[in-house]
């Protein structure tokens, strides 16, 4: 059995009358990359802060490396915040040296090529992100906590950043990645979907999608079809010149479109479509 790095059981947190996290249980094991998906306000940040021991839970139990979260435990974590967590006025090398001292890293990480000159704040965003990755991985953390790690970069840069995450996982680290970007989520081994403070779905991408199909309406006069479908209470999305319905059945479409000529085909539901459905379910 692989080692459980981070876990919680029946975890809850209230702020006054607001229930931010409501009975969440999860595990992150060595060697796996877990994606935590949630809309804004779903409880992701509150959950992460409790997993780290930075916020006491109202109920339930948290373990970090098998013990209650502590400063010593947190030192074995590599945390990449959305804002990257670099000192803009320091160079890449200075940032890395500082982080090395704080985390008592055994080996220094080299600054990425091209990142040597000038303060980090003046580098292109893609390069800043690579410095931040180097900094997070420098002390060989056993658990990575990454908050939307590759937002805003092109697919090639994203693939290279993921190479670092995958390399760490293959060397035995675990990773928990919070995101609401589907391209990032689809790169994870396992997904946990959070909505209204609860886990509403969990498993591989295929598990979450569950083989569901969306309907694609191909129709010459798509503006008219859009109006008719919406008037019928359906919520089509425009894709090219076709309309996609994540939910809804053929009969409803037929009723809405009447004698407007159209063709219907099925297409696997996307993670984003499934996510919106899960997040908006009562």
């Amino acid at each position, binding site marked *: 059995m692989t080692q459980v790095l981070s876990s919680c059981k029946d975890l809850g947190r209230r702020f006054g009358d607001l229930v931010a996290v409501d009975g969440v249980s999860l595990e992150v094991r060595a060697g796996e*990359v877990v994606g935590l998906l949630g*809309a*804004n306000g779903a409880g992701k940040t509150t959950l992460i802060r409790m997993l780290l021991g930075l916020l006491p839970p109202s109920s339930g139990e948290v373990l970090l490396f098998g013990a209650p979260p502590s400063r010593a435990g947190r030192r074995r974590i590599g945390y990449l915040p959305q804002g990257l967590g670099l000192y803009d006025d320091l160079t890449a090398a200075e940032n890395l040296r500082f982080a090395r001292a704080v985390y008592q890293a055994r080996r220094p990480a080299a600054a990425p*090529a*091209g990142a040597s000159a000038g303060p980090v704040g003046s580098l*292109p*965003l*893609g390069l800043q992100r690579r410095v931040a990755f180097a900094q997070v991985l420098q002390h060989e953390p056993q658990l990575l906590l990454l908050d939307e790690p590759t*937002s*805003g*970069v*092109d*697919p*090639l*840069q994203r*693939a*290279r950043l*993921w*190479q670092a995450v*995958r390399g760490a996982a293959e060397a035995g680290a675990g990773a928990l990645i919070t995101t*609401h*970007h*589907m*391209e990032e989520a*689809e*790169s*994870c*081994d396992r997904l946990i979907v959070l909505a209204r403070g609860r886990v509403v779905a969990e498993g591989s991408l295929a598990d979450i999608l569950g083989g569901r199909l969306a309907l694609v309406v191909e129709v010459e006069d*798509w*503006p008219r079809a*859009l*109006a008719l479908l919406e008037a019928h209470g359906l*919520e*089509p*999305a*425009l*894709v*090219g*010149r076709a309309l996609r319905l994540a939910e809804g059945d053929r009969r409803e479409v037929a009723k809405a479109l009447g004698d407007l000529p159209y063709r219907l085909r099925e297409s696997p539901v*996307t993670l*984003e479509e499934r*996510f*919106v459905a899960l*997040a*908006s379910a009562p």
Partner: protein
Amino acid sequence: MNFGAQGLTVRFGRRLALSDVDLELPPGEVRVVVGGDGAGKTTLLEVLAGARTASAGEVRRPSAERIGYLPATSGVYPDLSVAENLAFRAAAYRMPRAVFAERRAALLGAGGLLGHEGRLGGELSGGMRQKLGVICAMLAQPDLLVLDEPTTGVDPASRRDLWRLIAHAAADGAAVVVATTYLDEAERAVELVLLEAGRVLAHGAPEAVRGAMPGLLLDGGAAPPAAELERAWRRGARWRLWRPGAAKVELEGWREVAPDLEDAVTVALLARETAEGVAQ
């Protein structure tokens, strides 16, 4: 003739921000400009919206009052309420009162902002602010709607609302151009333009961009031989390897796969990098 640009070039001093960019923007269609940070998306959209002058090339756009523009910096006044932001926009575009009332109700409804009219722009969540920005840009039913990264940092539910608004603008006949860093949004375009360092690396319908990928794409479960590592990347737990030549060379444990848009775009970026010998 469609709105758009031909041979568009923009220089900032010695730096070439855009180089020879062509873009067609037919009415009633959504075109997406996709690229990473610094690719030139904002410069291109500024020129299309009339907010920046090109160094060379031709731009075809309607007169200023027929353009709706959401700049990357959010087109919402933080000290004005939602209602005031809209009223200010309506006044600037001299919209008749009845038309404004009807547009306002329809767009606030489609964007899920009904009931929030009294809130200040600066107090809205990121998703709501972006929705208000798009609503302001499309309020006066522009012929050309230019949206610079409306969905960046926005959660999926707001993203769905934003794309619903974009669909309505196109359904009303506007030529729409949307900049994004997300490829799944590029898949929603009739045609996309992939920008990198100010140049067009790929353009066309998403299927055409996929189909135009040169060479072969292989999928494998472990790292490729070291000699090929620079043409390999991760897709989830799997590996992808691009071979520029069409000749099939067997590699044990690897099989050829059809590229999706993400693969095709990754290859386009990789091919450019290899061709120009950009240092890693």
